[in-house]
C-alpha cells in the first residue's frame, strides 16, 4: 500500500498544515516539511527495496508484464459504471518522478520559510496538495485517474501564483490558467474519444492504460486523438509556439512557486509524452516525429536567444527553461534508449539547476529588492558564498562536463543523431548559445562595480539557504559523475516504453545505454 501512502501523506499533511497554522506559522512549516520528507523517505524506500530489480534483464517481448520491475500496487474498481479503475502503479520512471516531486516540495517549503508570512496555512496546504496531485499524475495508470490528477494540479498552482506572486501576478496566473486548461480539455476530448473507439473495437469500455497502450488506432482518427494529448503536454512542457504562459508565470510566482513550476509542473509535460502520447499512439506519433523534433530544436534556440535579451533575472531563468525543455522534446521524439535516458536525466537535472537559480533569484531579491539584472553587479565581493553557489548553478545550466546537465544533453544529442542528423547538429548549437547567456549572466550579476544592498538584510546566507543550494549541488554532481544510478533505475522502464511503440523504433547507435555513458 506504499503508493497509497505517497498520495495520502501530502493530502493529509496539507490539511494538518492548514489547521496547524491557526496556532503558529512555524508549526505549519514544520508539518509541511515533515510531510514532504516523509513522502521522500517512502519513495526512496520503495526504490531501495526494488534496487536489485532495476538492472535486471527484461524479457524482450514483454510489454509491462512481470517480471519487469513494475509494481502495480492498487487496482480496484473506482467508478465501474464507466469502466474507471483506481489503478496506481510505478516503474523506475515513476519512482524517479516521485522522488523528484518530494525533494522539490521540501526545497520549496524551505525556500518560503521566511518569505511567506501571511496566510501561511493556506500556502502550505496548496503546496502539499500540488505535491499530492503531482504524485497522483506520476502513479496513475488509468487515463481517467490521470486526467483527474492532471486537472487537480491546476487549482493549487493557480492560487500559488495569484495569491503569493509578484506585482503582475493576476495577469500571469490567468494566462497560465487559460493555456493549461485549454490543453487539458483537448486532452479530455481525446481520452473520451479513445475510450469509445477502443470500446467499439473490442467490446470492453475501459480507461485502463495497459489495455489502451498501442491501441493501433491509425489514420486521421489516431492523429486527431494524438493531437489532443500533444496540445496538453506541449503546453505544459512547453514546446515553442505554446510557451507564452511560462515566462510570465515563472517570473511572477514567488520563489517557492517558481521552483515548483520549473521543477515539477513542466515535467508533467515531459512525463506525459513519455508515458502516454507515444505509447498510446505510436503510429500517429511517428507521423509527426520530425515536426516535433523541429519544434524541439526551435525551442532550444529560441529559448536561449530570448534568455540572452532579458533584464529580469527570473524571466531570464524562465527562458532558459524553454531552451532546456526543447532538448526534452527532441529526445522524446528520437525515441531510442539513449535519448530517453538523456530525457529522464534532463528532467531531474533541470529541476535542480533551474530550481536552484530561482532560489538564487529569490535570495537576491530579498537582499537587493530587485530582480533587474542591470541593478545587480559586483555581488561576488559582497556575497561571496552566494557567488560560489550561483557560479556552480550557472555552469550546470550551460552544461559543463562533470555536471548532470551535460550528461543529459549529450545523451539526447547522441540519441537524436541516429534519427535525424540535422536536428542533432542544429540542436547542439544550443549548447553554444547557452554558454553565451550563462557567462553573460555571471558577468553582469557577480562581477563589475557593486550596487547597494537593501539596508538591514543579512550579508551571510542562513543555514536553511545553504542547505537548499547544497542539495542541488550534490544531486547535480552525483548525476554528472555517476549517472549510472539513475540510468540503472530507469533502464527497464524505458525499455518497456520503447517496446510499446514499435512504429517509432529506429536503429540504436549503441547496443545499450550503459555502454554509452561518459
Amino acid at each position, binding site marked *: 500500500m506504499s503508493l497509497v501512502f505517497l498520495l495520502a501523506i501530502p493530502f493529509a499533511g496539507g490539511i494538518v498544515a492548514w489547521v496547524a497554522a491557526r496556532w503558529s506559522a512555524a508549526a505549519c512549516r514544520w508539518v509541511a516539511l515533515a510531510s514532504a520528507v516523509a513522502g521522500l523517505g517512502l519513495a526512496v524506500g520503495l526504490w531501495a527495496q526494488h534496487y536489485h530489480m532495476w538492472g535486471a534483464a527484461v524479457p524482450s517481448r514483454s510489454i509491462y508484464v512481470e517480471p519487469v520491475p513494475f509494481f502495480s500496487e492498487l487496482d480496484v*474498481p*473506482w*467508478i*465501474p*459504471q*464507466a469502466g474507471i479503475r483506481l489503478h496506481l502503479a510505478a516503474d523506475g520512471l515513476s519512482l524517479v518522478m516521485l522522488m523528484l516531486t518530494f525533494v522539490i516540495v521540501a526545497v520549496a517549503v524551505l525556500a518560503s520559510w521566511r518569505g511567506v508570512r*501571511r*496566510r501561511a496555512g*493556506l500556502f502550505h496546504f496548496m503546496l502539499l496538495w500540488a505535491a499530492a496531485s503531482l504524485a497522483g499524475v506520476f502513479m496513475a495508470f488509468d487515463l*481517467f485517474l490521470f486526467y*483527474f*490528477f492532471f*486537472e*487537480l494540479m*491546476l*487549482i493549487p498552482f*493557480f*492560487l500559488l501564483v*495569484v*495569491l503569493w506572486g509578484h506585482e503582475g501576478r493576476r495577469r500571469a496566473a*490567468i494566462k497560465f*490558467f*487559460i493555456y493549461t*486548461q*485549454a490543453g487539458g*480539455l483537448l486532452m*479530455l*476530448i481525446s481520452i*473520451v*474519444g479513445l*475510450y*469509445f473507439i477502443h*470500446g*467499439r473495437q473490442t467490446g470492453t*469500455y475501459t480507461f485502463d492504460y495497459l489495455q489502451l497502450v498501442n491501441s493501433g488506432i491509425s489514420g486521421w482518427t489516431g492523429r486527431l486523438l494524438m493531437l489532443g494529448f500533444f496540445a496538453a503536454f506541449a503546453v505544459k512542457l512547453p514546446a515553442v509556439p505554446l510557451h507564452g504562459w511560462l515566462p510570465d508565470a515563472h517570473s511572477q510566482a514567488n520563489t517557492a512557486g517558481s521552483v515548483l513550476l520549473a521543477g515539477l509542473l513542466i515535467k508533467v509535460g515531459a512525463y506525459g509524452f513519455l508515458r502516454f502520447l507515444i505509447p498510446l499512439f505510436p503510429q500517429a506519433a511517428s507521423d509527426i516525429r520530425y515536426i516535433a523534433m523541429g519544434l524541439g530544436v526551435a525551442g532550444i534556440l529560441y529559448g536561449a536567444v530570448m534568455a540572452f535579451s532579458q533584464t529580469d533575472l527570473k524571466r531570464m531563468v524562465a527562458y532558459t527553461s524553454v531552451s532546456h525543455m526543447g532538448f526534452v522534446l527532441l529526445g522524446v521524439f528520437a525515441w531510442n534508449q539513449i535519448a530517453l535516458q538523456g530525457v529522464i536525466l534532463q528532467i531531474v537535472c533541470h529541476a535542480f539547476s533551474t530550481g536552484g537559480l530561482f532560489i538564487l533569484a529569490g535570495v537576491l531579491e530579498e537582499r537587493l529588492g530587485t530582480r533587474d539584472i542591470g541593478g545587480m553587479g559586483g555581488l561576488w565581493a559582497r556575497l561571496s558564498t552566494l557567488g560560489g553557489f550561483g557560479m556552480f548553478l550557472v555552469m550546470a545550466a550551460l552544461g559543463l562536463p562533470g555536471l548532470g546537465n551535460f550528461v543529459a544533453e549529450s545523451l539526447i544529442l547522441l540519441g537524436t543523431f541516429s534519427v535525424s542528423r540535422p536536428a542533432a547538429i542544429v540542436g547542439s548549437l544550443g549548447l553554444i548559445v547557452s554558454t553565451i547567456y550563462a557567462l553573460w549572466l555571471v558577468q553582469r550579476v557577480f562581477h563589475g562595480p557593486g550596487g547597494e544592498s537593501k539596508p538591514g538584510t543579512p550579508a551571510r546566507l542562513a543555514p536553511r539557504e545553504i542547505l537548499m543550494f547544497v542539495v542541488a549541488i550534490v544531486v547535480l554532481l552525483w548525476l554528472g559523475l555517476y549517472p549510472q544510478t539513475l540510468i540503472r533505475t530507469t533502464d527497464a522502464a524505458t525499455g518497456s516504453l520503447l517496446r510499446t511503440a514499435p512504429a517509432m523504433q529506429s536503429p540504436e547507435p549503441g547496443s545499450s545505454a550503459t555502454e554509452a555513458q561518459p
Partner: protein
Amino acid sequence: MSDAHLLVLSPYIALAATAVVVMLTTAFYHRHLLLAGLTATGLAATFACVLVAGAEDRRATALLRMNDVSLYFIGLLVVVALAVVALSYGYLGRTERRFGDFYTLLTLGALGGAVLAASAHFASLFLGLEVLSVSLYGLIAYPRRRPQAVEAAFKYLVLAAVTSAMLLFGMALVYAVSGTMLLDKVASAGAGLAGWEAAAYKAGLALVFAGVGFKLALVPFHMWTPDVYQGGPAPVIAFLAAASKAAVFVVLLQSLAPLDPQRGGVLVVVLSVVAYASMLAGNLLALFQQNLKRLLAYSSIAQLGYLVVAVVSSGAAGGARGAGTVAVAFYLTIYALALLAAFGVIAVLAHAEGEPEALSQYRGLGHRRPALALVLSVSLLSLAGMPLTAGFIGKFFIFRAGAGAAQWGLLVVFALTSAMSLYYYLRVIITMYRLEVAPYAAALATSPGGMSAGRRAADRVAVAALVLLTASTLLLGVYPPVLLRLIEHAASVFR
C-alpha cells in the same frame, strides 16, 4: 384502489399531511422551533415513504407514473426541502417574526415538485407546476418588508402566469389535434398528422416547451432569473434553483428520453440550439458579474444548458446507452447540493437588513469564517467541475454521454464554456482569501459573541447542514459509485 397503490402514493400523502399539520399548528402554537421541527419530521417521514414505496413502473393513477426515476427525484426533492428547512430556521429567526406559513408553503412546494416528478399526463403536469409556482410566489415575497423581495416575487408571478397560460394553450392545441394528453404518447402523436393539424401540433409543442423552458430558465426564457435570484430570500432561492428546476427537468427527461436522434428530428435541433445558447449566454453574462447572487443565477442558466446536452445525448446506442439519463440524474443531484450550499452560505451571513450580495463584501471571509468560506469554495469548485468535487464526475458523465452520441459540436462548446466559467468561480474564491477584510466580513467576527443562545444554536444547525452538503459533494467527487449504483438502477427503466 389497493394497498399497493396506497403504498406507492404514500410520499404524497405524507407531504400533504405535513402541510396540513403545520398549517393547523401555526394557528394555535406559533413557536418557531416546533414548526420547523414538525416540518422536518414530516419531510423525514416522506423520505421513509419514498424508501418503502419501491415502485415498479406502474400507473398509480391515470395521472401519475411512479417508476424508479420519479421516486429518485421525489427523494431528492425531499432532501433538498429538508436542507432548506435547516437553512431557513436560522435565517427566519434573524429576519422575520412570522414563521408558520413559510414552512407550509415550502412543504406544498415540495408536494408540487413531487407531482411533477411523476406526472404522466398534461393535467398532472399543469397541476404540479401550479402548486409549485404558487407556493414559490409566496415564499419569494415572504420577507414582505423588503421591497426587493416583493419586486422579485411580482416579476416571477407575472412571467410565470404568462408562461402558464402559454403552457395551457399549447396543451389544448396538442390535445385538440392528437386526442391524447399522456406524456409518453404526445411525442409520437404527431406522426400521422398533416396540414393545419400538423402545424397546430407543432405550435402546441413549441408552447409547451416554452412553458417548461421558462421554469428551467433556459436561454430564450431566462430573463427573470438574475432579478429573482437577487431579490428573493437566499434559502427560497436555493429551493427554487435546486428543487423546482430538478422537478421540471424530470418531466423533460421522462417525456423525451431516450431521445432518438433519428426520430427526434426538429426536437434535437431545438434542444441543441437551446443548449448552445444557454451555455454561452449563462457563462458570458456571469464573467464580469460583481453580485454573487446574480453570478449564481447566470451560472445556473449555464448549468441547465449542460444538462440539456445530456438530454440531447440520451438516445445514444452502444456503450453509452442510458448514459444520458444517468448523467442527468447525477448532475441534477450534485447541482442541487452545490447551489444549496452556496445560497446556504449567503443565508447564514444574512442579517435583518438584507443579505451580502456584492462580491466585495466577501473580501476576507476566509479569515473570519473559515468554515463558511470553505463551504462556498467547494460548492463553487463543484459547479466549475474541478476534481475531488462531485462536479468533476458529473461533467465527465455528461461528456461521456455526449461523446457516445457523437455530439461533438455541443461538447466543444461545453468544454470551452466550462473552462471559461472557472474564471468567475475562482474570482469569488480569490476574493474570499484576500488579505484585506471587508467591513461586512469584519463585523462577522464580532457578531457570534453578541448573538443570543438561540440564534447561535440556529446558526450551528445551518452550518452543520452546510458541512453535510459539502461533505456529500466531496464524497461523490471521490467515490461516486455510492450514488451511481442507485441511479443506474433507476435509469434502467429507459432501456
